[in-house]
């Protein structure tokens, strides 16, 4: 038996006495501008559920993508049964028995559930050229039966709900007979019944000796399912502790690097401020169903909910990016007719997309061009751009928002995520927008930049801007919002004041589906 005591900083636990099923040693990974993983360690024993925790951006997903061959590490090694292995592509990971359920669903919508599950491993007949469609559907049906899931394997995945698509992903991972199964927030889009189902499946697999890496933010879930917990923070490995006998507070303290109590802030009372934006009865298909809310001056309204709950859709509809079927939008007391983003901007609405690179930023253009993009009318003289005025305005915002860039001529794509986000904010501020939609404003940016964005949001609210913040990170919603609106399946399922909001209450509202049938 190889000696495992060299694994640094692991607490000895039962089940980790033999060579671990998987060991990651001293793994480093650098992305442009970010050291995503800094000398990380991780061990997984056969038959254990090992929770991997850390705030968003801590490096959990990156570490698991290295284990599953999506990324390659810059340095460090991966040991399987104590032997070093190279995993340079997903196919190799699969061959080694490492399966992963990605957080973003990776399915082919035009193909059926069964075709998705067995893509790349289709049962074949007639010289191995033809797909044996019957066997394919039979095998998929067998997996669904094992999962006690009532789903026709011939249904195109694009016609399933997000929760059902997730189940297809799980079925796909199960179909590999994997020895290692990585689940990246598998319950993010599931309701309680489905979560129970998932846990039953996980326990079955555990009994068969499969090692499971379980990434989740939900503490109560981890209590139920996890044996050990490893914590990461800012791309670094912090510690591994047994779940039993460890308090949640101490895990959180490891995650955030400090105790949580200092976090409670009292928001300013904005309940008597002027209502700057009111929407009533917004509808569009299944995505937006009878949504209404009010937004006041100086307020940060948090939009909470699961992926696909309709929050982004509501923001985009108000911004005029997508058409509405019905509904009223009232701005500063007057009905506004918004048919395009140009109309919305004219009414002082700015929208910061969750996907900066695609929708928010012209990454190939420089900082000043990006900041001035929405306000070109102001900088135009007889059809020509007033370059000097643009530069001065941009420099003003670079100073005011502390955007870290060598100059305003720097290409936007060369800046870090946090600074890119600030450029988009500057763009809307320059346009005199006083209603700002922030869609996942801190996604993909590191922890230092996050707190700067938070300060900036607070400062903007204090200046009287009205802010809607869409966020899937509950701690972020709880920390920043003055008031919280929760959505589920296109409907607003509840509104919570800052005082009454807890993670549990939000989750309950976020999973409050209309019916038991998915």
């Amino acid at each position: 038996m190889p000696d495992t005591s060299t694994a640094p900083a692991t607490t000895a636990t039962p089940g980790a006495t033999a060579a671990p099923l998987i060991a990651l040693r001293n793994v480093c990974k650098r992305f442009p501008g970010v050291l995503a993983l800094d000398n990380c360690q991780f061990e997984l024993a056969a038959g254990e559920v090992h929770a991997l925790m850390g705030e968003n951006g801590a490096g959990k997903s990156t570490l698991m993508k290295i284990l599953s061959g999506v990324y390659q590490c810059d340095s460090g090694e991966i040991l399987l049964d104590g032997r070093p292995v190279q995993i340079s592509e997903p196919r190799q990971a699969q061959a080694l028995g490492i399966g992963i359920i990605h957080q973003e669903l990776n399915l082919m919508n035009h193909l059926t559930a069964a075709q998705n599950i067995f893509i790349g491993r289709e049962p074949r007949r007639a010289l191995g050229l033809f797909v044996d469609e019957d066997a394919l559907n039979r095998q998929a049906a067998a997996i669904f039966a094992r999962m006690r899931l009532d789903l026709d394997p011939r249904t195109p995945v694009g016609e399933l709900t997000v929760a059902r698509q997730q189940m297809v992903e799980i079925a796909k991972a199960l179909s590999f007979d994997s020895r290692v199964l990585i689940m990246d927030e598998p319950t993010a889009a599931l309701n309680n019944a489905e979560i129970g189902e998932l846990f039953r499946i996980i326990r079955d697999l555990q009994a068969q000796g499969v090692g499971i890496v379980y990434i989740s933010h939900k503490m109560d879930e981890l209590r139920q399912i996890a044996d050990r917990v490893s914590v990461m923070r800012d791309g670094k490995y912090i510690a591994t502790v047994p779940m039993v006998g460890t308090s949640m507070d101490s895990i959180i303290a490891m995650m955030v690097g400090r105790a949580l109590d200092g976090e409670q802030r009292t928001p300013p009372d904005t309940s008597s401020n002027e209502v700057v934006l009111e929407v009533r009865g917004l509808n569009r298909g299944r995505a937006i169903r009878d949504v209404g809310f009010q937004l006041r001056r100086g307020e940060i309204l948090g939009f909470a909910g699961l992926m696909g709950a309709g929050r982004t859709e509501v923001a985009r509809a108000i911004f005029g990016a997508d058409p509405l079927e019905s509904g009223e939008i009232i701005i500063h007391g007057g009905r506004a007719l918004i048919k395009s983003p140009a109309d919305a901007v004219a009414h002082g609405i700015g929208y910061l997309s969750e996907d900066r690179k695609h929708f928010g930023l012209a990454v190939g253009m420089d900082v000043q061009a990006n900041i001035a993009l929405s306000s070109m009318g102001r900088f135009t003289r007889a059809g020509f751009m007033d370059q000097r005025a643009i530069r001065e305005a941009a420099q003003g915002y670079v100073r005011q928002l502390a955007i870290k860039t060598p100059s305003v001529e720097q290409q936007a794509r060369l800046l870090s995520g946090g600074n890119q986000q600030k450029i988009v904010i500057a763009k809307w501020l320059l346009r005199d927008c006083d209603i700002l939609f922030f869609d996942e404003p801190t996604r993909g940016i590191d922890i230092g930049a996050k707190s700067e964005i938070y300060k900036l949001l607070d400062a903007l609210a204090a200046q009287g801007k009205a802010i809607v913040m869409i966020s899937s990170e509950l701690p972020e919603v709880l920390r920043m919002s003055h008031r919280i609106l929760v959505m589920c399946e296109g409907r607003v399922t509840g509104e919570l004041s800052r005082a009454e909001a807890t993670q549990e209450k939000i989750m309950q509202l976020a999973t409050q589906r209309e019916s038991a049938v998915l």
Partner: protein
Amino acid sequence: MANNIHSAPTASMATPETSPGLRARLFNPAARQKLLAFASLLLLMVFFSFASSNFLEVDNLVSILQSTAVNGVLAIACTYVIISSGIDLSVGTMMTFCAVMAGVVLTNWGMPLPLGIVAAIFFGALSGWVSGMVIAKLKVPPFIATLGMMMLLKGLSLVISGTRPIYFNDTEGFTAIAQDSLIGDLIPALPIPNAVLILFIVAIGASVILNKTVFGRYTFALGSNEEALRLSGVKVDFWKVAVYTFSGAICGIAGLIIASRLNSAQPALGQGYELDAIAAVVIGGTSLSGGTGTILGTIIGAFIMSVLVNGLRIMSVAQEWQTVVTGVIIILAVYLDILRRRRRA
């Protein structure tokens, strides 16, 4: 369009527990588009048969079939590429290149007929393989890569042939490939030329391969979500190259048909055929964004185009106006497709 009621977006979503049986299969969006295209084709034919008494003459119908053969085969080649969410602008000049290479092998080298056939298909596959490698390995966007191939192959055809047509007078039976009628020999009342027979054989083969084989499955998967396919451990580059290679081989068949019909390889021919082929694919309901499409739809699309041209001609509409009408039809077909998608979303 009586089946429009089934396109209500919530109908299938509200009851996900019902299995997609025959009903769902008949009325799924792809089938609906096919029905729509087929109905349009019938409508056109009814219209022209009233507009001109000559339209339904056997000779005229045979001429429609004959004129669909080349475009139909090229459109089948394009269907594969477009389903994989690529595009191939080189199919027209690739067809000509294959015809020229058949001419080199048969006329210049005096080899027997079967070798000429193999040569045409081989050089089509080779050209497609080059396009595929440029796209998959060098990461050149398909539009640019195949635009380059279009010019490259056009130039090569001219260079190899010395800019003169290569005639197949010395190869016995070459014209029979497209012009004779095996069906007519069996059933004298049906003088359907072999070119059309080849079109249908290629169509059936391509349809089976697309829907039943692993290769077909990956063609759809590439167009639906390439990243998901990659993460599933499938060798995405290999299959992408395979799609273009296969498509190239089919262009080789088109090259044989056109060379046989003209009894010569005309090196200056070919440019412009790719756009007709793409138009047929799109009219047939294959989405340019990839992931969906059928060979049957493409064949219907190709027939819509040739019925339109034929019908307008026997109504004595000037050729210039025929082109205008074809343009309008293409835009209309894609617009209908967009409308349908929007309603579903």
